[in-house]
């Protein structure tokens, strides 16, 4: 068996050839939203893939070895930052054997840079506050203005990594921004009649969305971020819904509907499954259909029709 070890060592040396250069820019993002936007900007010049699915809780993604394979081939890694991926991304990057995508390298892009980040703590944070993010709320891509910042950052990075195709990236960016501006007008118009409507959310995933579309989040089903609802807190929220005549409870697709449905039964409010990310449903295939879906469902519920 000692000879077997020597053979394995020789085999390892023989296997150390490097992969051939690839024509397309390989992008891996943690969230499907960034992959979708980068595909819009890169078109046929890029291949974009994501680690987390749109219907998955982005805080709890497993660091599966199959993700190491994806990252090992990546030219560009798009991360949400603000410690959203702290539970799985750092070990995956270390094991990727791909220095191009290490933080600080040209192939690592923190999408939060330049975005409007809300709820940055201004006092000492402790875990007595629940699963708080000390650098601010990481669910910032739910604001179309931040989507625009993200698209520009991706276009800039692609131009840097692939200068010969800079004109294409800039053209695609212009088209993306034009469509986003047009769609945003449409979304804002749909939401305008419900300006300052009060809503309950399950988790603090929606401050950027609420700010942009003028919703007033008055409470969360979680008593503290990451802490499941308790009976006392559930009763408090039911009283809040009744006293303030709140019509909508927004729930991300990865949370248990038992408590929200119980609250809805007791109050007459409508539970809306709101998707924070692209890919949450088959029809939510890009950044535009994400808002199309969520806005339509919200408007339906705010009108009083329910879903």
């Amino acid at each position, binding site marked *: *068996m*000692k*000879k077997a*070890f*020597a053979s*394995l*060592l020789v085999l*390892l040396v023989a*296997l*150390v050839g*490097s992969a051939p250069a690839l024509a397309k820019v390989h992008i891996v993002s943690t969230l499907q939203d960034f992959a979708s936007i980068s595909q819009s900007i890169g078109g046929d010049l890029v291949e974009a893939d994501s680690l987390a699915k749109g*219907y*998955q*809780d982005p805080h*709890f993604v*497993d*660091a*599966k*070895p*199959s993700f190491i*394979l994806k990252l*090992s081939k990546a030219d560009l890694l798009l991360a949400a930052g603000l*410690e959203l991926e*702290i*539970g*799985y991304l*750092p*070990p995956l990057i*270390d*094991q990727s*054997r791909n*220095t191009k995508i*290490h933080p600080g390298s*040209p192939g690592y*892009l*923190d999408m939060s*840079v*330049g975005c*409007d980040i809300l709820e*940055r703590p*201004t006092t000492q944070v402790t875990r007595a506050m*629940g*699963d708080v993010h000390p650098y*601010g709320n990481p669910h910032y891509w739910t604001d179309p*203005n931040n989507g*625009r*910042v993200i698209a*520009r*950052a991706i*276009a*800039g990075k692609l*131009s*840097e990594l692939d200068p010969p195709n800079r004109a294409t990236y*800039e053209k695609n960016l212009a088209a993306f921004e034009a469509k986003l501006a047009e769609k945003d007008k449409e979304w804002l118009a749909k939401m305008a009649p419900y300006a300052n409507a009060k809503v309950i959310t399950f988790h603090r995933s929606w401050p950027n969305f609420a700010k942009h579309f003028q919703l007033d989040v008055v409470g969360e089903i979680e008593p503290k971020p*990451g*802490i*499941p609802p308790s009976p006392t807190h559930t009763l408090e929220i039911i009283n809040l819904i009744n006293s303030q005549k709140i019509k909508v409870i927004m729930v991300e*697709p*990865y949370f*248990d509907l038992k408590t929200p449905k119980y609250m809805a039964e007791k109050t007459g409010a409508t539970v809306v499954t709101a998707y924070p990310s692209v890919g949450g449903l088959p029809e939510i295939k890009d950044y535009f259909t994400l808002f199309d879906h969520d806005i339509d469902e919200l408007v339906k519920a705010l009108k009083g029709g329910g879903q």
Partner: protein
Amino acid sequence: MTRLFLRTSATLFGALALLSPVLAQQASQAPATAQEVDSLRTEVAQLKEQVKALQEKLDLLMATSPTPAPAAPGVPSQPPTGAPPPEGAPPPEAPPVSPTPVPASTTSTQTSNYFNPSISVIGNFLAAGGSNDTAPLPAASLSESEVAFQAVVDPYARADFFFSYAEKGVEVEEGFATFTALPWGLLSKVGRMRVSFGKVNTLHLHVLPWPDEPLPIVDLLGNEDGWIATGVSFSKVIPLGNVYSELILQAFDGHADGLFDAPERSDLSYNGQYRIFTDLTESTNLDLGYSYALGPNGITDSSDTRLENFYTVFRWKPLRTATYRSFILRGEYLRSHKDEAVGSVRSDGWFASADYQMAKRWWVGGRYEVSELPDDSTLEDSGEAATLTFFPSEFLEFRGMYRRRHYFNDDIANEFLLQIQFAIGAHGAHPF
């Protein structure tokens, strides 16, 4: 002779791999041409002129404006950039297309902490009741507190230290540098580490689904902590289509508590593992691995102990409800061939466990374990256990275990263990 070959190969290979980034960098620094030198001289002269002009302007300003009072020590002179914008303020203008977005600046008081390692402490309280005459645990103990320091060293490496504070004293459970920028897709660790022998042996106690190590680990790897050794490790990912496979080769010092004992300094221990991981479906995956290890056991000058391990882990976790429902099935088979003064003893052991997450914070599990003793395979330990675990949050865990063990000496132990684990400090990666 074989050991000499292994040692020489490992040393040469390791040295080449570790030095190659530095050599490559040196090779890329070609000598400057005379034209480049002239160009640089001109540029330096221009810069000197600019500095002189700026200095003159600064002197003029200093002479005409009052001296500002110095800021209090540790108090930033400007509000931190991380503060939220005032209520009603317009959203910040989106930046133009920039090749490299620049992170927001921070105050000087924060920069002093930038390079400190992430620090975390995990306390592990263990209480035991019932009967056990063979391997009794104390009624209550802080059986292990793990203190971790982790940081990136430089663009080529990161460092991880895990100190285990038990009531008896402190041990370096692990302390290693990982070289993440090696050529040819290699990853190397150097230092003291949990050996990649099987799956459970690589895991720290606080991420196991039990408060104890299974019997084959304790009996065949020599002690309660498993096999921890000091040396060097190289690994290479060998993709098989979309299937992840990895080859790990490791060489260590020839001493390991209860397992290896080297008569000579040059007698090393070795381990190799080949691992395959594949996603069966979006919700299920399979992890398989085979490990082979050998090292001197010190009974005679040339006697070895050879170890084999085959492990499998099956996971089911529907992504949409991943934080509420999941299931993990684990199994490991270990074999030890221990050279004695006369002949060799072959001992086998295995364990299997199943853990089901029935709600966001609740897990239930069961385990069966059996192991022959490495010195006498006619003697055998076995046991069954059931666990119930409650996680109030990611950082706190209560676990109860009913454990029944049948020891080689016919002692039957019936015990109830209560484990409470609590973590403070930096948020580490979720175990997988």
